[in-house]
């Protein structure tokens, strides 16, 4: 019982940070793209790296919650 609650809390709380971070990153990228639409090639790669790093944190939270459910 406790491990289910812990798993839910781990994923739920662990997704707050990456969610906010990804939102900020995407909004800045959209803003830069809006100012200068021809720079989409130059914006794309750092944008991809940024969202990959933020998403990796969410994956760590997911793995912790899966471990809590499936490993006694």
């Amino acid at each position: 019982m406790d491990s289910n609650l812990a798993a839910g809390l781990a994923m739920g709380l662990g997704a707050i940070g990456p969610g906010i971070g990804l939102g900020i990153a995407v909004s800045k990228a959209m803003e830069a793209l809006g100012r200068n639409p021809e720079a989409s090639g130059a914006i794309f790669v750092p944008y991809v790296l940024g969202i990959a790093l933020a998403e990796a944190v969410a994956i760590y939270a997911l793995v912790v919650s899966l471990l809590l459910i499936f490993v006694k």
Partner: protein
Amino acid sequence: MVPEGRANDVLGAVEVTGQDPDRGASPGGGSGGPPLNWALALDLGLRLGISVIVGIGLGLLVDSWLHTSPLFTLVGVVLGMAAAMLTIWDVAKQAMRR
């Protein structure tokens, strides 16, 4: 879509139909370099997370063989993080080459 039989082209006919170069691939995709498309973007986040997990898993495996309890697990964590950073470095280098 192109009305000629692209299916024939797939199956090995000789002629190459001209296509507009940026269909389906975001910047790059030139003469043979690996393309930087949106599928790679979706993939990168999950790969970074799983690199660390695979590193920890391999470390645990070696630990269970050699009975050196936390040593190889920690080495696995470090190697997993290094693999994640290497992945990012590869993508950045490939982009800087363009």
